[in-house]
């Protein structure tokens, strides 16, 4: 904290993190599809397929509804902006990211939520029945998942006496017993459920559905095309990579760079990739064994996550 501001270093770190998350997000999506395909007895599309899709989408025509307002255009842009902002400032490759002093865990949650809100507004803006339906479902799930996430963040921040995200990761590195404390484990369980809900994975939402009536997230982006859809795809996959990256760095922080400089950034990137790949394969394997929950059962799941997070807060307060 006492070091003089190093603008070039900060730009390097932020750029490296945005690059790793921006390219790694689509690759993570491809890896999870590949894992599912393999377990289903298929060969499956190559891991780089989402990158090929995005490249093609940027070359395609952009169609926007005639009756739509600026919100339709703003949705994908706000989504990708929030993902890039969090990717630049979160402790992913290093415990000292750019603007690390101001990377508050609560703030990260709110910034990511802003992207979801604008995506829902863009879906409502088209006036199509599926867009409105998807937006209302996504907002319902968000309203149930966010409280659980915020309480889990509170449970994370009580033992460390701070909600500053890089400080939380550094705390885990210097005091490994904090990670295995009951409060942290309960909060981590709640965090996992919320990550699944927020990134539209099973058992909350089926990312590979073709049936409009079962869609939650997909229904919101049915009207987006070409470059707009590419931004949505990249933004959503970056968000998944970000949430998983934060999850693994909070639960298994080892390998993350603690010094600045190119070499430690590369080591941090390799460690992050290895951890996120394992987490992605675990989630994809879990998805093969599970079915989508009925929509009206979702409040039970997310209320369960909320209770876990609340228990985490109580345990952390008692153990303090």
């Amino acid at each position: 904290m006492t070091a003089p501001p190093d603008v070039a270093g900060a730009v390097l770190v932020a750029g490296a993190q945005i690059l790793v998350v921006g390219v790694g997000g689509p690759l993570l999506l491809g890896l999870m599809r590949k894992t599912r395909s393999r377990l289903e007895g298929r060969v499956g599309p190559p891991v780089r397929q989402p990158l090929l899709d995005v490249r093609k989408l940027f070359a395609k025509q952009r169609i926007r509804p005639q009756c739509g307002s600026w919100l339709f255009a703003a949705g994908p842009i706000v989504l990708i902006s929030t993902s890039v902002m969090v990717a630049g400032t979160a402790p992913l490759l290093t415990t000292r990211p750019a603007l690390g002093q101001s990377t508050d865990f609560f703030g990260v949650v709110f910034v990511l939520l802003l992207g979801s809100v604008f995506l829902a507004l863009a879906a409502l803006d088209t006036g199509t029945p599926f867009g409105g339906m998807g937006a209302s479902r996504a907002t319902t799930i968000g309203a149930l998942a966010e409280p659980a996430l915020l309480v889990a963040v509170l449970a994370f921040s009580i033992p460390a006496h701070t909600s500053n995200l890089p400080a939380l990761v550094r705390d885990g590195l210097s005091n490994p017993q904090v990670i295995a404390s009951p409060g942290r484990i309960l909060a981590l369980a709640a965090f996992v459920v919320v990550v699944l809900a927020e990134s539209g994975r099973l058992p909350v939402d089926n990312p590979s559905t073709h049936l409009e009536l079962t869609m939650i997230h997909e229904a919101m982006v049915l009207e987006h095309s070409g470059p707009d859809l590419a931004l949505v795809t990249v933004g959503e996959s970056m968000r998944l990579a970000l949430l998983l990256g934060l999850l693994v760095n909070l639960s298994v922080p080892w390998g993350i760079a603690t010094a600045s400089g190119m070499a430690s950034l590369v080591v941090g990137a390799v460690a992050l990739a290895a951890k996120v790949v394992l987490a992605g394969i675990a989630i994809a394997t879990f998805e093969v064994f599970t079915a989508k929950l009925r929509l009206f059962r979702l409040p039970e799941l997310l209320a369960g996550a909320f209770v876990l997070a609340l228990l985490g807060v109580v345990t952390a307060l008692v153990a303090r």
Partner: protein
Amino acid sequence: MSFWSGARTILRPGRVTETARRRSDLEQARVPASTLRGSVQLRHVDAGSCNGCEMEVVSAFGPVYDAERFGARLVASPRHADALLVSGPVTRNMARPLAKTFDAMPEPRLVVALGDCARDCGVFHGGYGVEGAVGDVLAVDVHVAGCPPSPGAIVDALRGLTGR
């Protein structure tokens, strides 16, 4: 389903996908739209088919033929689609929806006519409810012959689009 019975279900059959034909063995070598190389999203429209073609499409995207490994994927919205997969003769009721679906797709866009009915109305030729073949409503880029076309033929046609 318990974890162990699920794991047995996965491990016992192993990989069921058939080995792909070599790319050089395919008849169609030219990719109709170069921007779509490697990634083609398809929107399927049943314009009046007997559902024979639909069953073969399901097989083509199933584990045995696995068209997704060549970069083709079925999507839920024409806004996401690069190619329109049309099956059956075009009935009077479906002519306008078919044309509107095509209009909703962003450029560059292709039309794949699936099955003999899509080319010349097949056994439905001259029927009172039939408007005409797919070629009478839209400009067809690729035609897949057969009644119904085999999943292998569908996969070959899709590989012709993705160039893989």
